[in-house]
């Protein structure tokens, strides 16, 4: 057990990207009932534009801000012009799902067409490595985890204490009641999509810094993020964050103690088992009963 701590530390580091993506997915789902399958591609688009800006001499930290704004802005435009016109109702929810899948494919193809298929890199904010709990981590990963945790704390504060955040929670619970107390549903949707895609951009930016800038940057992470979303319960924000970290830790535990080749299989087997016992995830809303 002497090496359990470093494995968990590594799990938290990789889990922070999953948690950010999962949180982004849940924030968007709660506000507009839409699962945004294009979230990874929107985030990647943000990263490509950030890399271009960095190439023109923008500092790396500025690049991160550009990635957030571009991805968030893309999200806002998508909601306004592709999702909102579909209207409400079950049929349009399914159409919205297909629209986001299609949009993701279009963005993915456009990235290759505009920037080419050769991976590039983002320089590290702080080069070198440090030792955490006896495990050597690049400063990159430490900074990434720190920023991810700070972003999540900021999101938690926003939803807990600001009038707009409270309005967003209210709207997620009851769209109609929110409307009649004067909450503007369009504004709620816009903020949710900006926030969701912006959080995904933070994850994508650090994934790119860790590996390389390529169009499939978020693919594996998004897959795990979705697992985290379901693990935490599709509608719970803390659940999504915890789910993301849980997947990261589980992934590293499986790789270290069981089999590196079957780590995905093991992770998903555990998720299936958890969902079998608790179908709505560990913090999901479950079956709502009204009295």
């Amino acid at each position, binding site marked *: 057990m002497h090496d359990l701590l470093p494995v968990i530390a590594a799990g938290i580091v990789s889990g922070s990207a999953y948690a950010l993506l999962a949180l982004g997915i849940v924030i968007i789902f709660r506000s507009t009932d839409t699962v945004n399958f294009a979230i990874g591609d929107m985030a990647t688009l943000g990263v490509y534009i950030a890399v271009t800006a960095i190439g023109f001499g923008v500092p790396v930290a500025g690049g991160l801000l550009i990635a957030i704004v571009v991805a968030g802005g893309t999200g806002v435009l998508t909601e306004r012009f592709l999702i909102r016109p579909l209207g409400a109702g079950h049929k349009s929810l399914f159409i919205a799902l297909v629209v986001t899948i299609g949009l993701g494919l279009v963005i993915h193809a456009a990235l290759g067409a505009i920037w080419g298929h050769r991976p590039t890199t983002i320089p590290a904010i702080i080069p070198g490595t440090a030792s955490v709990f006896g495990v050597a981590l690049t400063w990159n990963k430490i900074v990434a985890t720190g920023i991810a945790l700070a972003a999540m704390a900021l999101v938690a504060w926003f939803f807990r204490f600001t009038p707009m955040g409270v309005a967003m929670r209210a709207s997620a619970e*009851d769209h*109609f009641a929110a409307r009649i*107390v004067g909450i*503007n549903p369009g504004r709620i949707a816009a903020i949710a999509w900006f926030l969701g895609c912006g959080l995904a951009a933070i994850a994508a930016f650090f994934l790119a810094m860790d590996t390389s800038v390529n169009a499939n940057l978020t693919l594996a992470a998004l897959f795990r993020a979705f697992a985290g979303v379901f693990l935490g319960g599709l509608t719970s924000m803390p659940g999504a964050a915890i789910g993301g970290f849980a997947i990261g830790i589980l992934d590293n535990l499986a790789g270290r103690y069981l089999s590196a080749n079957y780590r995905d299989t093991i992770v998903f087997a555990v998720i299936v088992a958890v969902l079998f016992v608790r179908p709505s995830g560990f913090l999901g809303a479950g079956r709502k009963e009204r009295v």
Partner: protein
Amino acid sequence: MSALLAARGIGHRYQGVLALNDIELDVPKGTFMAILGPNGAGKSTLAQILAGAIRPAKGQILLEGADVTARAGRQGLIRNGVALIPEGRRLFGQLTVDENLMLGAYGQPRAVREARLEKVYALMPEAVRQGKHRAAVTLSGGEQQMLVVGRALMAEPRAILIDEPSLGLAPILTAKVYDLLSGLRRGGVTVVVFEQLATHALRHADSIVVINQGEISFRGGVDDEATHEALRTGYLGH
């Protein structure tokens, strides 16, 4: 007495089924009106249309004589001082009592909201005042009904439209809700209740409107001879 809210030729359908047909209605300023009718008569639809929460298929809604129909369908008329308390209360159950009330004055500056919060808490029962940080869903039915009236009051509305306030409440709790509504009317707020049960409404209202199958079938003052006659013949479903 001039009308605060008025319906002119309102018609509405749900998926082809007639819900309201050619409704003409004037709600006089500062009065207490009870709109009575059986389940499915179109009361909830009329409440939502008058409050601007849904847009009528036909006709106009007038607020102090001005046509406000075009504003319907989004945030309703809450910014114009018309608050709707829909059927089933529709509190935000996962949010705290405090948060629910604060949302009633959404968009107002913090100082305004906090000043109103104090005033509204003074009207609330003890359990609501003691449970500011509790989730609203943990309150009893009567407390929830009081809280949702409180949430509407946070907007300092000129008119409150309340759909089935007695639904699922014990008579003694219903009486408390009506006492609160009567107090508001004395303070100058126009009150419209939409009810299936006439008992409490008749005790507090100034005028009665009955709707049946989407059409107004009776209207009169509470003390009118015709109303008493209608009550005696069971016309009001009393």
